[in-house]
């Protein structure tokens, strides 16, 4: 289950997708829309995506995880469109016979999403709006693309 959807994410469904008789440990990450960034107050967010490529990249992350942590099973769903404060933007579930692997693989997934999955966030604040990722100080990729692995 590696999906970009425009409707609310069913966290329980994503989690259940990775559970099985020999899982033992399941780690779920939910990234939600936060109201405050420093002192700046977010009203709502808009997420946009290059959907076919983003889906392929989520699947790639799933393959990276299966290779690096054998025996794990993962699922990732990212929501796009308008999201309100508290809404889940992304849900990542990883199951494993070993809890250390479930934590590590889950963390890997969110770092990789933030690094190379074509999804963009537009913040709508009380005093303006901005596409995130386009600010000064954003890391450029000298090779023209992100590395295969950090």
């Amino acid at each position, binding site marked *: 289950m590696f999906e970009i959807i425009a409707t609310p994410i069913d966290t329980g469904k994503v989690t259940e997708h990775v559970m099985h008789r020999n899982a033992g440990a399941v780690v779920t990450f939910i990234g939600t829309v936060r109201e405050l960034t420093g002192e700046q107050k977010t009203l709502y967010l808009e997420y*946009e995506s290059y959907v076919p490529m983003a889906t392929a990249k989520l699947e790639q992350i799933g393959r990276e995880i299966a290779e690096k942590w054998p025996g794990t099973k993962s699922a990732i769903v990212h929501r796009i469109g308008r999201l309100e404060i508290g809404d889940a933007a992304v849900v990542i579930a990883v199951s494993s016979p070993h809890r250390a692997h479930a934590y590590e693989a889950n963390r890997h997934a969110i770092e990789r999403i933030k690094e190379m999955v074509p999804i963009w966030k537009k913040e709508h604040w009380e005093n303006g709006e901005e596409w995130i990722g386009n600010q000064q100080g954003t890391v450029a990729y000298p090779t023209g693309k992100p590395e295969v692995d950090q």
Partner: protein
Amino acid sequence: MITVLVFAHLKEKFGQPRLVLEEQELTVSQLRRVLAEQYDLQDNSVMIAVNEEFAEEDEVIRAGDTVALIPPVSGG
């Protein structure tokens, strides 16, 4: 002709979700030059995807390929 998909702030900058180039074939570096000269886009933080995969600078783009400009991502 080569169609280039654009997203996020680039979609707003160009006022449309795609650019249509007259070229039949060019490399990724040549595409960057065209974008700079004809579209006032000179930004090395923008990656270029060909057929839904990040492309090297010397990769050749041909008519019919799916090309997209990928500004730094901010999902999650």
